[in-house]
């Protein structure tokens, strides 16, 4: 008997009890739906994060205070006595031969006020090279200059989101005075629209000279340093150079950590890999439960159809015909559940994509094939025992069964 014949028998049986089939498939349906959704979202987040890193520039280095022996990105800022200072920045800026641009970063947040309008903003105290290091650009006016840093000038470059909220569309912000805390700042530039990175609105920040930020937040340290290696191939030597320059200034003590983009990508990949593994594991459990459901129903079905099995054997069905009949039925039921799960997953992914346009969620062919493969495997695993039981029935006993 051909596989096609077995399929046709399976579909007959399914057509005969649609409600039961639906209930049977429910477990696999939910399982596959979970696989599709969770793995799909995991992929999307990973792609998103990696794309974002790539957009930042892969030869970018970050220096954080505190020594971190293990690789991977784990910024710690509080546990070191020797923090990073602006003199570290100057050292790298002047003496870093392999570096193409260095910027200090002093991070904080403050109230921003224009007349009666107030809002909180994230304040980046930075150097003149910051903009290009982060692949940002100036839209109107100018960016911060070395003199702004040296003179601790109260000047600010703001993003379009803030401009829109405080000044509206028609008023030019350039030259206006805004207050950060109680200090007046003159708006000298507006950054070009960039959109969100890691969910953070890059147009919703205020950039001021790092020196001014230290005054604003009343600190003498800086949060971290950004430096860019001249090109991709000199990232490792650049890391060494930065390390030596900073260690020199500390009499050989290494109380800072240098991260490259590779480290961060590796970290993201590792985290996402773990996350996807756990999501997959959760989804697998629901598939397992689905499989148990199918097995259960198939066992009941074999019992109920004992007579039918006897008749089939009497009219010439071989052992393997009966085995395949039930095995194929289990696989068909499971794959139907899988298909429904994929369909449901596709719908939900579309909904997620609608509400989170930044997230590159999608249904990859690979995931669909994987999910259907899984459901077929679940069907086989769930069907083997009932099918064996059916095929092993003694025809005489089966015909006598009431």
């Amino acid at each position, binding site marked *: *008997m*051909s596989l096609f*014949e077995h399929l046709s*028998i399976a579909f*007959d049986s399914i057509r*005969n009890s649609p409600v039961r089939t639906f209930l049977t498939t429910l477990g696999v349906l939910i399982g596959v739906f979970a696989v599709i959704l969770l793995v799909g979202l995991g992929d999307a987040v990973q792609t998103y994060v990696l794309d974002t890193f790539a957009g930042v520039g892969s030869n970018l280095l970050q220096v954080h205070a505190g020594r971190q022996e293990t690789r991977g990105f784990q910024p710690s800022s509080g546990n070191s006595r020797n923090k990073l200072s602006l003199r570290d920045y100057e050292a790298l800026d002047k003496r870093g031969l392999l570096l193409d641009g260095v910027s200090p970063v002093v991070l904080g947040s403050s109230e921003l006020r224009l007349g009666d309008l107030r809002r909180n903003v994230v304040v980046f105290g930075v150097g003149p090279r910051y903009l290009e290091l982060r692949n940002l650009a100036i839209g109107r006016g100018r960016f911060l200059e070395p003199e702004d840093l040296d003179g601790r000038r109260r000047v600010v470059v703001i993003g379009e989101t803030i401009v829109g909220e405080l000044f509206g569309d028609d008023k030019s912000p350039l030259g206006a005075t805004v207050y950060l805390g109680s200090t007046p700042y003159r708006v000298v530039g507006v950054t070009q629209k960039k959109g969100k990175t890691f969910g953070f609105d890059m147009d919703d920040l205020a950039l001021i000279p790092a020196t001014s930020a230290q005054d604003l937040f009343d600190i003498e340290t800086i949060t971290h340093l950004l430096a860019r290696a001249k090109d991709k191939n000199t990232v490792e030597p650049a890391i060494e150079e930065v390390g030596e320059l900073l260690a020199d200034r500390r009499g050989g003590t290494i109380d800072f950590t240098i991260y490259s983009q590779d480290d961060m990508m590796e970290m993201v990949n590792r985290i996402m890999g773990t996350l996807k593994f756990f999501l997959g594991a959760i989804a697998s459990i629901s598939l397992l439960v689905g499989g148990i459901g199918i097995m259960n129903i198939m066992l009941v079905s074999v019992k109920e159809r004992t*007579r*039918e099995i*006897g*008749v*089939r*054997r*009497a*009219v*010439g*069905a*071989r*052992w*393997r*015909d009966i085995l395949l009949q039930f095995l194929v039925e289990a696989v068909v039921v499971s794959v139907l559940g899988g298909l429904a799960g994929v369909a449901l997953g596709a719908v939900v992914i579309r909904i997620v994509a609608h509400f989170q346009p930044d997230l590159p969620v999608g249904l990859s062919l690979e995931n669909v094939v994987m999910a259907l493969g899984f459901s077929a495997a679940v069907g086989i695993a769930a069907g083997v025992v009932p099918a064996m039981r059916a095929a092993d029935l003694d*025809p*005489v006993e089966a*015909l006598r069964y009431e």
Partner: protein
Amino acid sequence: MSETPVIALSGVSRVYELGAERIQALRSVDLVVQKGELLAIIGPSGSGKSTLMNVIGALDTPSGGSYQIDGQAVSGLSDDQLAQVRNQKIGFVFQSFNLLPRQSALDNVALPLRYAGYSRAERRAKSERALRRVDLGDRLGHTPEQLSGGQKQRVAIARALVTEPAILLADEPTGALDQATGKEIIELFLRLNREEGVTVVLVTHDPQVAARTRRVVTLVDGRVVEDGPPKGGS
């Protein structure tokens, strides 16, 4: 008597072992059935009728003795080969019809052909012909639920006939029917035997049914105690 007998049992025994108990269901049964015969196997319940039927139908294998169906030795066949024998040589008719409930008459009749590997078109043609032979040519699409008891048994007979088997083996075919319908079914067997030369073996405990045949084999306690034309009756 030069023709190969359809059924040739010689010294057939069948022993069941239920735990420590040994049940001798058949004791040295000899039975030869020629092509075109119409016979009844009768006997009280527990006499071994069912066992004999299962052995003849290749559903069960003898513990001892030899059995040939249509010249082919059944003893020693594999499970698959027994299935093939059932498919090609035997047409079963059961007391309770044993039709697949939600399938049409046509599909029910076509069931043995599926296992014989016929194409869809061949199955349809052969099944239609078989249903016409039992006067059900106008009920092809009906499911068993939509058929009367007599019609169901006709469908079952068509299913038994569809592979052109060597024998039609019917186990109490009138047991689930009222008397009038039962009579019709017996008439159908008689007609198939008379007009088409189909070999028919009826297993029954109904003496009226047995009386319509030309040969009655009486089984008592697993032994053939009588084998000859029906007594009395008509």
